[in-house]
């Protein structure tokens, strides 16, 4: 018999802390008291289910879903990977939502005041649902780096924001995917807030196999959600 809850705990050795002083918004926003342990009940073992019916035709193609009169500017890329549990078993039929800056490092968001151009043909938001093997795939353009107010001359590395549900309330994950070789990673307190041993998991890998000739560079970003303990239990 396996553990009926099926979910491993949040691995605090892999996740950033709530309060990380170098990221200056955290000291007033993160909880300060110890979390109260909660043994999962039905309300945690269930969670929102959004399947393929949720997805519009162009939702996974960010090079097209914001196009008005042409193609977005920037370097076209493919971002793909597997969503899996800690044993490498696929998480099928789960919603993956993404949002990102355009190639110039500008978000379409109204409060983004970065003085870089908006792209009339790029929106920057999309979603898809993983297939039966847990795979997802987006077409987009490589997001630019952008400045932020954390400290003088602070710049966010190129990144794509990801949001996933997984099979239960417990598997919820919001994260960011980075690009290999980015010199800003070593200076970014959001990335560096992550425990060192787990940082590489946030960096996608360039793949010539995923790259489509004459069209777009390929990056692979696998995502591991909590779950599916294999611990045998005495009955």
């Amino acid at each position, binding site marked *: 018999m396996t553990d009926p809850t099926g979910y491993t705990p*949040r691995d605090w050795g*892999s*996740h*950033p*802390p*709530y309060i990380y002083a170098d*990221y200056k*918004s*955290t000291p*007033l*926003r*993160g*909880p*300060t008291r110890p*979390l*109260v*342990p*909660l043994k999962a*009940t*039905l*309300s*945690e073992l*269930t*969670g*929102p*289910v*959004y399947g393929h019916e*949720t997805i*519009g035709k162009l939702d996974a193609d960010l090079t097209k*879903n914001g196009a008005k009169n042409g193609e977005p500017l920037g370097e076209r890329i493919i971002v793909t990977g597997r969503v899996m549990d800690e*044993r*490498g078993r696929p998480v099928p039929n789960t*919603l993956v*939502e*993404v*949002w990102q800056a355009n190639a110039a490092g500008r978000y379409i*968001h*109204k*409060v*983004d005041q970065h003085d870089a151009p908006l792209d009339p043909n790029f*929106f*920057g*938001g999309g*979603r898809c649902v993983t297939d039966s093997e847990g795979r997802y795939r987006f077409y987009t353009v490589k997001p630019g780096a952008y400045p932020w107010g954390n400290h003088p001359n602070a710049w966010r590395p190129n990144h794509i*924001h990801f949001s996933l549900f997984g099979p*239960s*309330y*417990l598997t919820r*994950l*919001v*994260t*960011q995917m980075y690009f290999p070789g980015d010199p800003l990673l070593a200076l970014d307190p*959001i990335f560096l807030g992550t*425990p060192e041993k*787990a940082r590489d*998991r946030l960096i996608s890998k360039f793949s010539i196999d995923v790259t489509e000739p004459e069209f777009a560079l390929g990056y692979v970003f696998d995502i*591991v*959600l*909590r779950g599916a303990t*294999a611990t045998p239990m005495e009955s």
Partner: protein
Amino acid sequence: MAENFGQTPSQTVGPYFAYGLTPEQYGYPLKEIASGRLASEDAEGQRIRIEGKVYDGAGAAISDAMIEIWQADAKGRYAHPADPRGSNADFRGFGRFGTGTDPDNRFIFDTVKPGASGDGQAPHINVTVFMRGMLVHAFTRLYFSDEAAANAEDPVLSSVPADRRDTLIAQRQEGPGGVVYRFDIHMQGDAETVFFDA
């Protein structure tokens, strides 16, 4: 032993989630998967509104937080395969709302009051908090002020230090528009909300 893959680390939702996760609420041209309105006209149950603010450690209401809620329907059933009873077809039970569109930075959910799920727990709603300045989301729970008897028996509420339990109780108010439960979330301070390691 099977290979063990490490959990992908959490990162902050950042300040610019709105057009990706709550686009219609903020006026962006993308269909949203969830909103502050959980119950369609046809969903059975008592209509309620849940509203509140998210306060930072300086006591300021946060304007770029995103709240998600997950709940059972009026009969205590969840719309998920792990609940064999299943919810009624008109109620999915998931809501999502950013605090940046209301002039007072409230989150507002129009839903039905959940029923008890029959496992000894009081009616409750799971609440997840995301924001710029938080690298990992926080889990909490909302209970109802008019369920005192059930709350007293609730195993999760009972596991919380007695002097902090009231941070999880939404206060019922009857207004001209109907029943409103007020649920403020305090990230820090004397009234810091209880967050769970779920």
